């Protein structure tokens, strides 16, 4: 084998095999293969070099790292606001990929690692894609989840390759698929058992396809309905409907992506890439993309990596006990067992334990990649009990009983002795101050809050609450636990409602308040949805139940929360009348057989007065504004100790409009002056709860922002 390595190339290792006449381009950037300026230069040089190899018969692109190529370097993209400059860079990359697929020799992508975004688009610019048959290898186009779209040919290559419908399914949802599913979906052409098999398959393809050309460079029709046909038109229209139904117009990226696919398919391929490039740039320099990238990429990654958080290499947690085998406890048991912990699940009712066991079995059954034996091993780690004794020696006890201080105190006193030496006590309370709960603890240093979200198997966020007495070591060990069970932690200070419950409560109370003020409930819900909230306020209030809300008001009053509002009275009245929410068959909505049937006609009768500003815009300002204000208060109160937590917590814990980047981003984007002025006006007209905290006002006066402007 003739090894011919160009030393200037920082990106790609080059090898030419004199027997097979195949050039191998190995992506070998310093740490991880990411698309930046160096990548572009390296790839161009590589193509120059390959083209110069005498008797070249084919090209294989593979990787020196675990991943094939993970997509664009966001550090360059994130601050970019210059359309012209970005368009030039995008055009350059598109031209490179175009050159790759028109070199008159077959080019094969050897996907022994994940290919995402622009990395997968590189693979799409090859004639053939072979992936390692391994669930850890993922391919796809996740760009819309960050507010942009595939800008390196994906919107034009994928539909021409697999048809409109299949391509839209991937592009519009930002889907990433594991290799076996990717093969089924047509994103890769073949699977192979190991690296050698992948390489051999690549060589075989090259030998068998000397005149390889892309479908769009050959005569012939793409799979499925022809672009411009009536069937295609219906597909696009249905896609429009689905986007609108799911996102209520809150996101630009899926809309622009869909339009780009359709517009590009109407014209020939090279010019279609221009359409894509312009659409990509339009999104990439937009506010929404900036805000989404900041939070969903940078903040989320930092939180996931525990940046700046206490760390320990010796967490010393193996046995976990859970008190309370309701929905939450059962889910927790499963999640812990899945992570390899030994679990004891305790309740005082046998029936509850049985339901919990069934739940865990059902969850295990869903893990189809596990063998029967592995599943049994997993379930075997969970021991259910009515007794205390089996809990002895627990390194971590998670208390998940009813939200009642006296009950929690009793349970703590009873079970805390079951902790091992240095064991940690964690309460799953959503609002009760940890300091208050810890009053009965024998070791408040090791007492903290782990506030999970339901359903715990799905919800990534974990709100870790540390009291004034909680030790850093306990926090570090708890964080090690959160990492092992795959959760996304925010670490917040102690106070009634902590962070997420305060923000969530503000949201749903404001929804009730708007109805009480006389706003059309249909518009209130639309305002929530169209503002980008994952679930509209009255609907989610029904889901958590109004009785829970009423209880929370009572509890809140004990903690000095001024709750003398028509919205509160409305909820209390509805509860009095038995309209407690979804589980009760009626709340703000009517339900039949568990399904939502529409807003209750009787709501209007509970309204007092006629609102001045009935616009949807006003309702959006109120619903988002009250949450953002509450978030700003928690920063001022020291509950939020790092600003990324406010964003991550709001979005992943309580469904705050992801398109805004989070409540603090929302304030920054509006401008602190404008936000303060709006809140002051609302305070005048709608009440004290809109009072702006002093620190926020000062920030506005000094021209500060929560995050660096971009």
């Amino acid at each position, binding site marked *: 084998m003739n090894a011919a390595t160009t030393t200037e190339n920082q990106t790609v290792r080059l090898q030419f095999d004199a027997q097979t006449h195949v050039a191998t381009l190995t992506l070998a950037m310093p740490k991880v293969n990411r698309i930046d300026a160096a990548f572009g230069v390296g790839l161009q040089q590589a193509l120059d070099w390959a083209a110069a190899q005498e008797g070249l018969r084919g090209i294989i692109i593979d990787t020196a790292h675990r991943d094939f190529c993970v997509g664009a370097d966001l550090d360059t993209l994130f601050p970019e606001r210059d359309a012209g400059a970005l368009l030039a860079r995008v055009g350059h990359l598109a031209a490179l990929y175009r050159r790759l697929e028109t070199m008159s020799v077959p080019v094969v992508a050897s996907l022994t690692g994940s290919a995402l975004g622009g990395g997968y688009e590189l693979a799409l610019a090859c004639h053939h894609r072979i992936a390692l048959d391994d669930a850890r290898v993922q391919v796809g186009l996740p760009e819309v989840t960050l507010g942009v779209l595939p800008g390196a040919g994906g919107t034009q290559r994928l539909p021409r390759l697999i048809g409109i419908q299949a391509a839209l399914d991937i592009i519009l949802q930002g889907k990433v698929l594991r290799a076996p599913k990717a093969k089924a979906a047509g994103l890769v052409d073949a699977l192979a058992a190991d690296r050698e098999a992948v390489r051999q398959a690549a060589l075989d393809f090259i030998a068998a396809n000397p005149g390889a050309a892309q479908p769009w460079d050959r005569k012939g029709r793409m799979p499925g309905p022809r672009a*411009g046909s*009536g069937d295609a*038109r219906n597909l*696009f*229209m*249905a*896609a*429009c*409907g*689905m*986007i*609108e*139904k*799911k996102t*209520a*117009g809150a996101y630009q990226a899926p*809309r622009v992506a*869909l*339009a780009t696919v*359709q*517009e590009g398919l109407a014209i020939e391929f090279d010019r279609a890439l221009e359409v894509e490039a312009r659409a990509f740039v339009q999104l990439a320099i937009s506010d929404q993309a900036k805000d989404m990238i900041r939070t969903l990429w940078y903040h989320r990654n930092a939180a996931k990596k525990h940046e700046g958080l206490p760390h320990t290499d010796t967490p010393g947690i193996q046995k976990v006990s859970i008190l309370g085998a309701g929905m939450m406890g059962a889910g927790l048991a499963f999640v812990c067992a899945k992570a390899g912990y030994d679990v004891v699940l305790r309740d005082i009712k046998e029936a509850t334990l049985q339901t919990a066991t069934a739940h865990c079995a059902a969850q295990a059954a869903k893990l189809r990649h596990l063998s029967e034996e592995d599943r049994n091993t997993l379930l075997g780690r969970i021991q259910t009990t009515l007794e205390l004794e089996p809990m002895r020696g627990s390194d971590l006890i998670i208390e998940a009983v009813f939200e009642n201080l006296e009950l929690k105190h009793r349970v703590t006193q009873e079970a805390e002795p079951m902790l091992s030496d240095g064991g940690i006590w964690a309460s799953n309370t959503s609002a009760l101050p940890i300091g208050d709960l810890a009053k009965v603890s024998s070791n408040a240093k090791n007492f903290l809050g782990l506030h999970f979200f339901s359903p715990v198997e799905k919800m990534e966020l974990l709100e870790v609450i540390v009291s004034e007495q909680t030790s850093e070591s306990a926090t570090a060990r708890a964080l090690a636990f959160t990492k092992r069970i795959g959760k996304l932690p925010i670490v917040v200070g102690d106070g009634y409602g902590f962070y997420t419950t305060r923000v969530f409560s503000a949201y749903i109370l404001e929804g009730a308040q708007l109805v009480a003020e006389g706003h*059309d409930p*249909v*518009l209130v819900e*639309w305002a929530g949805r*169209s503002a980008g909230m994952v679930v509209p306020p009255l609907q989610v209030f029904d889901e958590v139940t109004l009785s829970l809300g009423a209880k929370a008001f009572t509890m809140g009053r004990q903690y000095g929360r001024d709750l003398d509002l028509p919205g509160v009275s409305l909820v209390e009245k509805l509860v009095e009348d038995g309209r407690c929410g979804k589980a009760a068959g009626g709340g703000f909505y009517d339900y039949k057989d568990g399904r939502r049937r*529409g*807003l209750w006609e009787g709501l209007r009768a509970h309204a007092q007065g006629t609102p001045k500003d009935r616009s*949807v815009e006003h309702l959006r300002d109120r619903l988002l504004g009250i949450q953002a204000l509450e978030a700003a208060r928690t920063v001022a109160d020291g509950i939020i100790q790092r600003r990324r937590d406010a964003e991550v917590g709001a979005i992943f814990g309580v469904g705050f409009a992801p398109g805004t980047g989070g409540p603090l981003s929302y304030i920054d984007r509006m401008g602190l002056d404008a936000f303060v002025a709006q809140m002051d006006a609302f305070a005048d007209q709608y009440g004290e709860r809109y009072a702006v905290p002093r620190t926020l006002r000062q920030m506005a006066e000094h021209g500060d922002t929560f995050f660096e402007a971009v």
Partner: protein
Amino acid sequence: MPDAYVFDAVRSPRGRGKKSGSLYATRPIDLLAQSLRALSSRNELDTSLVDDVVIGCVTQTGDQGACIARFAALEAGWDLDAPGVTLNRFCGSGLQAVNDAAAMVASGFYDCVVAGGVESMSRVAMGSDGGAIFDPSTLWNVGSVPQGISADLLATLGGITRDDCDRFAVQSQQRAASAIEAGRFSRSLIPVTDRLGLPVLEADEHPRPGTTVEALSELGASFETMGRQFGLDALTKERYPQVERIQHVHHAGNSSGIVDGAAAVLVATKEMGQSMGLTPRARIRSVGVVGTDPILMLSGPMPATRKALGKAGMQASDVDLWEVNEAFAAVPLAFIQELEVDPGTVNVNGGAIALGHPLGATGAMLLGTVLDALEDHDKQVGAVTLCIGGGMGIATILERV
């Protein structure tokens, strides 16, 4: 400025708009040519005096492409000096042609213009001419939904129920049946013949006289699946956020029929008509065309009518007979509701639910229909109005002379 007079109006019977329809084997150019030939022959028209032939046709592709107006006129044996122009304002095209003819004549620049329309829905499918109207870009930037969703939205906004629509549909069928039986279309209806002169179609073949409300109530709502499952209802929400849920009430039985047909109307100044030896039947009092929200799409008849009435210095109560195109039952029902007109004066001989709606021709047909009805009932003032895709509306007011 001279007035524009209507001297005559003819139309073909409407064939079912399917491959099994009676007019499927007749080229649209021939269909139109027959209406034009009938107009010229029964009026002994010197076609060299026709300044222009303005024809409405919506799906101008395939058999209906290439300025069908001009070649149909020549096919009809008209003088080489009778030019033609083909226009598209969707469902309003036929009436637009009449209004254009009237305006051309009233301007003093033209003396005699023949208006009309043609649509062969069996041979040239609705929508087959493409366009950007349903491009995602248009949907996002402008707003656009399929008409059926608009119709159901219109019904929902007006509190018009499924039962209301079905009853209206039955009434349309009953009125059409009795009109056909009584020969009330005979003055304008010209049978379509083949090259042998043998009749191909002599009467409207779309009506279903025995239709009952019970039978209609069995039909599923046509736009429910696309609206709810495919999310097309969601596309109306941004503009109509106060609508919690669209009630889907329309189906094939209470919406306009898909049919083939053609029509022609002779418009000229009084002097020109008289010089041709013809007696005017009506004067075009005024016209109105408007644009409204493209998502609701079908509410155009109301403002268009108000505009035309205003131009004529008239009130709705001054109109004796109305033709409000039955694109969907909710359209005339909403019109009657909003303009507070007597339902007994609207579509007295039935409408498109029974008879069918040959897109480009309907407006011109309705003009002839209302004129015949005015003469039948010895009434004076008639109005024709149609809802139009893209959120437009068109109206024409005429007065017998």
